[in-house]
């Protein structure tokens, strides 16, 4: 056991002028007290700053290099492509990579909009009061369409639509005309169905799930003349969500 002697010497140094004889009983007690305070095993960076000392808003307006993002995202796709059975499997993996990010962004988004006076959430009525958690589908989708998209890509998404078919009232579509994740990705011809924005779909899924809305989100290519990489995110809410939505509508909750 090397720890007790080391603490004993530290103690005698810090006490400095006190006599060794009187110091002895003290050193018997203090190592435990010190250990319980400092909790062994915790490693602190050399500048003594942990993640708890950093301010969450510091990187708020910081911008990330697009080149490094493109590189990292390209690597993520390559990583996900290993040992996959097909395009669906690959998209599922990308989706799973995005999911935890969505959960985190949700907390960060709310923290940032509560701590600053200029609220980033359009759904909140006044800028000073903290924004509300989304309770209804529409508020949630507006949250994704506006604030979340701005946090991720610095602009709002291009469209938000509800399915017109009466068979699928639980389907909503968020459109991005030119998704940033696909800017530097060109899929080979035999994988033309692949849309790497499945990663973003995973983020959306994480956000919805975090708010308590069970969802499946998928990304689909829908190119137009003007926007060759136009992507539609299909958001499908689960049956329990739709049932709750009806109850909340009757109760008049907004």
């Amino acid at each position, binding site marked *: 056991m090397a720890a007790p002697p080391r603490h004993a010497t530290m103690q005698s140094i810090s006490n400095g002028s006190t006599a060794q004889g009187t110091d002895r009983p003290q050193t018997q007690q203090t190592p435990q007290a010190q250990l319980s305070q400092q909790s062994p095993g915790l490693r602190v960076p050399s500048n003594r700053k942990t993640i708890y000392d950093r301010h969450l808003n510091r990187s708020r307006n910081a911008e990330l290099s697009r080149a490094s993002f493109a590189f990292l995202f390209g690597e993520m796709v390559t990583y996900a492509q290993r040992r996959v059975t097909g395009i669906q499997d690959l998209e599922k993996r990308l989706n799973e990579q995005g999911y935890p990010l969505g959960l985190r962004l949700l*907390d960060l988004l709310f923290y940032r909009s509560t701590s600053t006076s200029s609220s980033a959430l359009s759904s909140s009525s006044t800028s000073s009061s903290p924004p509300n958690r989304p309770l209804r589908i529409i508020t949630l989708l507006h949250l994704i369409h506006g604030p979340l998209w701005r946090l991720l890509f610095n602009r709002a998404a291009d469209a938000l639509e509800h399915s017109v078919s009466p068979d699928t009232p639980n389907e909503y579509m968020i459109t991005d005309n030119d998704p940033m994740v696909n800017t530097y990705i060109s899929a080979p011809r035999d994988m033309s169905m692949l849309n790497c924005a499945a990663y973003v779909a995973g983020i959306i899924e994480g956000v919805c799930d975090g708010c308590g809305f069970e969802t499946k989100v998928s990304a689909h290519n829908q190119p137009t003349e003007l926007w060759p990489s136009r992507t539609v995110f299909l958001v499908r809410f689960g049956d329990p969500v739709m049932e709750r939505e009806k109850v*909340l509508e009757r109760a008049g909750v907004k």
Partner: protein
Amino acid sequence: MSYYFTILSPTDTPLFNIAFGTSKGGGDGIARFRFPETAQYMNQFIIHSSLDILEEAQWTNGGMYLKHIDTYPPAAAYITAFLTPSGARFLLLHQPPHLPSSTSTSSGLGSSSLLGTAGSTTRASSSSIAANPTSPQTEEAVRQFMNEVYESYVKTAMSPFYKQGMEIKSPVFRTRVTAAGKKWL
């Protein structure tokens, strides 16, 4: 006033808990619950039983701070809740001191077996933050406390080594919560 604070994941896994006492009005920050030392699980029992009410309140009130949601009269325990947008629940149980005059050190433990008598007498006893759990001042103090914990929680959640649903073991986090408790409660 004694406090028991706990964080529960959206799937009801306890992520963090801490018991502490008030530091206001000469308090020494040590929890003195009315249960004997051997029955400290009562706190967990009471706090978890309020989850049903929380889940109801969750869909009618869109705020993050849900204020005082539940009371357990036999133990004079008041429960205040805070919900993060990602579904983690912060629950704070507060138990006012047993008698208005006996806020001094030993009384809490000494009278620990008298569970049933406290309820109504303490509520009317005093208007100070410590003794009156439902006053607006207390709600505000708890709100400040919750917001401060929320900040630390977001920092924890943003760590790439933390997955949602993992127990929060960081001693720095514990220190932060203790400090927030000392500052506001």
